């Protein structure tokens, strides 16, 4: 009887544990939001960056413009960061 009770307490989580687990889930979600959007931005910037370096090698005047074109996909990771901030702090 006593042994059964102990097992039951082990399986059922306390309120504190549930809260802690929720915070953990939030942290994982925030990490995924930033990490995956970061990868997406990286993939997008890869292609643009390659072309940008090529264009700059041919004509140095394009540097300013291609630098901008290269940072355009950063919007993706910034949205990820905003989502992460909202998850963690709001």
């Amino acid at each position, binding site marked *: 009887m006593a042994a059964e009770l102990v097992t039951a307490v082990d399986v059922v989580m306390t309120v504190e544990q549930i809260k802690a687990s929720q915070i953990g889930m939030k942290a994982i979600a925030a990490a995924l939001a930033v990490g995956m959007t970061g990868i997406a931005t990286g993939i997008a910037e890869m292609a643009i960056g390659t072309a940008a370096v090529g264009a700059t090698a041919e004509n140095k005047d394009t540097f300013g413009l291609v630098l901008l074109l290269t940072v355009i996909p950063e919007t993706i990771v910034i949205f990820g960061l*905003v989502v992460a901030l909202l998850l963690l702090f709001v």
Partner: protein
Amino acid sequence: MLAPKQMSRLLIVASRDRMAPVVAELYRHHLFHIEEFVEAGAVGYEGFKIGTPLSGAGEASVDLVKIRAIENATSIHGDDIDSAKICTSTELKSRIERELPLLEKEVVDLMVRRSLLDTKVKENEQKIAEIRPFLTVPVDLDLYRGYSGFNVFAGYVAREVKLSVPCEMSYSPGKDKNFIVIVAPAGERSEVERSLQEAAFQPVQIPEESGTPQARIDYYSGEISTMKTEFDEIIKKLEAVRTKHSGFLVACEEFLKAEVEQNEAPLRFATTKQTFVAEGWVPSDRVDAVTADLVKATEGKIYVTVLPIDFEHDSVPVEYNNPSFAKPTQVLMDVYSRPKYTELDPTLMVSIVFPIFFGLILGDVGYGLILLAMSLGLRKFLKGEDGRYLLTVLRNASISSIIFGLLFSEFLGFAIPGLQPILPSRHLMVEHGSHGPMIPDLLILSIWIGVLHISLGRILGIINHARQDHGEHRTKAMLANFGWLAVMWGVLIAIWSIAALPLMPNLTGLPPVVSIVNYGVVIGGVLAVLGILLIARDSVLEVVELPSIISHVLSYARIVAVGFSSVAIAMVVNFISIGMLIQPQLENFSIFSIIVIIAGLVVFLMGHALNTVLGIMGGGLHSIRLHYVEFFTKFYKGGGVKYVPFGMKRRFTED
């Protein structure tokens, strides 16, 4: 302000013998943007031909080439030298005649000697490389040659060779390759060659030298070192030429460049046998002055008139017309594109808003001070105009960063003690008494900035279309821009009526129509639908772009997000260096602590240096991107021709 400088199209006609004074006068004014004449049978220009250069063009060009060669050899660049008026043109002319040939001879002699020495050093090094393999064979080099009854083989083999014929052999195994020398009777040549081939023999040329290999190598090394001393002396002499004559040379270059440009100007004019016609652009407020001086220079034998501008076909050159504090921002405009003549010039707005965005992103007193020091310190090294302008932009941005740092109460990621943030707090760590990060407030603040910035862009779009377009298209385009505004504000009003948000008007209290739909939602919906109709009336395809309203407004959230990333990095650096390394060691001090504290200081310095660089990138690139991508796409096209007046800003010579 907000518009480029007003230009007038000037037509100048005179007889060909007045060409020289006219060109000189135009060059001196540095105001006339020449419209190049092309022999393409333009209306009114039938029978005209491109002019020929004025006399003296050839000599000046030759001298200019000489000067540039000397400058190249002594690596003198005009941009690196502070401008100072060195002498007048007449003085310079006589000095060029007198000094240039001597100087040229001196430099050319030094250059020839230098390249000769360079080749000789290379030759000697080659010889040393050839002798080096023979070092292992204790035989004089002249003993390898001059036999009639014997053959000498020297080279590398993969493995040791065993010969069945009588011979003398020296085998010295090496790391990668083994060197072998064989002297065998001439009759056994084929046998030796066969055995060597089996051992993968690579022959080496026997040097034409006499004496022991070591002695020869020592001799050539000695030669090289004497040559290197002489080489250094030549470099020193060239350096002396550089220090002594750099002022004279840059002045010469400037003077001759002016001569050549003036002499070649007729190549851009239309001419007949007796007359020439020059067309070009002059700022409207200077037309009278230029005309009067031209008349004076030609004693009245000239016809100058202002032609009407045909905005459809003429490409009017664009010169910025900004107050002095907005001038540096022109660099950022030119990176995108110069405004068209008929377009609004947004430089002034960029010059105000860019530093504000930069400050909002990198609002930190510490970083602001570092960047301010950098922008002032780098002034010594950057002498070009564009570089100076960029530094001024950075200076303004860093001042704004300091101001916003005070408003956010941040110093290198720490909260400034005793100063409560006036703007919503960005401190990620909740410390005693301080507020945690106020993310919703900050995000909504950035959305507000986005909405207002984009609305301004759309209003400017309406103005631009009103100024540039004609007829039905004009009305449609203006209404389409209004439509974009209506959709954005309609959606906003609808959102305000459904949910109460901090820092935004609360319209949820309006009388309801059906369930949660109140009058606010209805008004917002009507505005949005009206907007969509207006957009579709101009171009149906544009409707596809509607979601860009949301993505562009949300894009301004980067102001908060990038700012936070910079705060977070600063905080992490502070935590690692002070919290984890320095503080615990100070509490329990021992000899070992000194090393850890130094490591902590290194982490602190490196971390903040990295964050400063990221701060410039983040603050600068993202603020300018918000302008280029989100703001300019609403109204700005650019593509104006740069105003390049004929003449030059003299830095070293006087006219």
